[in-house]
């Protein structure tokens, strides 16, 4: 018998089709990095570190009128069920590129000519939707580093399982579903900075899926703002000699 991903309107993990996985987001988790963030979204665990702006070496890579943005997405060998061979591969190089492009548009790169801003996305545990969760955490890390940005970028994936559109796919839905579409957009005015799709959807389904993604991104955007505020809202404690 064929296994079902959707039973009586509930997904395998008990969520309704338009529900996000539980999200935990924290800013400023690494002392050595200029900015950092940690996100847990379902079984995803991702750490993001931001360095810069700083001097770029070798010098021929410098841009005389703007900063260079570099992004590295990396999966830990223990992040997936079967050990992943360490180091960059086709997939992580591609994801690094799309993540960089998703964040580039919100940065004021012309403020820091000749310099470089580095973003490191380390996936410690993967459970589908790591690129978009990485973007959500990376924009928090950029803000935590004090790098000026136009807006925070939040990302979420939408997809189709058993003919129904669902928000924020988990690993099983990603693997056995009919479509998977990661979307990233700016928090305030919902401008899309990343849009990819794997699988099949009709035009109408695509429109609905985008609406669903917008809803998910709005929820994540609220969590991002909360995470940044939380870092500074804690009341100062008396220091004892």
């Amino acid at each position: 018998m064929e296994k079902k991903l959707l039973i009586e309107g509930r997904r395998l993990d008990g969520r309704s089709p338009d529900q996000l996985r539980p999200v935990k987001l924290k800013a400023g988790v690494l002392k050595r990095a200029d900015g950092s963030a940690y996100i847990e979204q379902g079984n995803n665990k991702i750490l993001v570190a931001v360095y810069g702006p700083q001097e770029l070496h070798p010098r021929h890579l410098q841009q005389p009128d703007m900063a260079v943005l570099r992004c590295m997405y990396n999966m830990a060998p223990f992040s997936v069920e079967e050990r992943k061979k360490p180091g960059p591969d086709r997939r992580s190089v591609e994801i690094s590129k799309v993540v960089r492009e998703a964040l580039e548009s919100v940065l004021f790169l012309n403020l820091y000519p000749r310099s470089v801003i580095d973003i490191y996305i380390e996936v410690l545990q993967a459970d589908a939707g790591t690129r978009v969760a990485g973007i959500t955490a990376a924009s928090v890390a950029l803000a935590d580093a004090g790098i000026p940005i136009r807006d925070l970028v939040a990302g979420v994936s939408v997809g189709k399982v058993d003919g129904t559109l669902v928000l924020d796919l988990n690993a099983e839905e990603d693997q056995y579903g009919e479509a998977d579409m990661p979307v990233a957009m700016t928090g305030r005015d919902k401008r899309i900075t990343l849009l990819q799709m794997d699988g099949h959807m009709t035009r109408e389904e695509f429109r609905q899926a985008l609406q669903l993604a917008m809803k998910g991104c709005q929820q994540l955007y609220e969590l991002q703002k909360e995470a940044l505020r939380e870092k500074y809202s804690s009341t100062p404690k008396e220091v004892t000699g």
Partner: protein
Amino acid sequence: MRIVHVSNRALVVPGELLAEGDLRAGRGAYKEGQKIFSSVVGLVEIGEKEVSVIALEGCYEPRVGDDVVGVIVDSHMYGWIVDINSPYMGDLYAQDLLSKVDVTRVELSSYLKRGDLIFAKIGEVTSLRKVKLQARGAGYGKLKGGRLVEITPVKTPRVIGKRQSMLSMIQSVTGCILKVGQNGRIIIMSEDDKKISAITEALYMIEREAHTSGLTDRVKVFLEKRLKEDGEKASD
């Protein structure tokens, strides 16, 4: 017509709507059409003509006229390359440190070596962000003695305070001289190790609590308490 959407000194995050209308966007803010948004995490400052956000994190951006504490990285024919804790290195030419010098005859590393600390003024910043330093005059030049403390550069205005209130309070309570670089490097000039460590802790306290109010009074209480405790320990 102008509408302000946030209160003064409110904590904002990037992308938040601050104001609309004929106001200017200052540091930490940007304007899109008629609307002004924040671009950093920080505290809002609403002025007469301008809305800006004082960042709570960030690197040091060199500005003409700032005093900085620099570390010598290297020397070349005409001067030195100086790390000023910023994305850009500072250039110090020999004639901007020494009054009469013939660079063809003297060995520049006899004046400043790699690792030496200097106190300098930012003389010029070009559009390519080449930073030229000036270190002539009283109070500038090579630093001898003292302890270097580094804090987040954006928080140095808090160490100085409004009309130097914080800085002069620390100096009068402890009797030590502080040389504050806008780039987050502070030199405590003192021979007394206990005073140095008390001031160091106070500086870290300012860094940690820079976004809170009534800080000068809290730091004063802390310093007085620390110095009293040290005094008691010494007399035991």
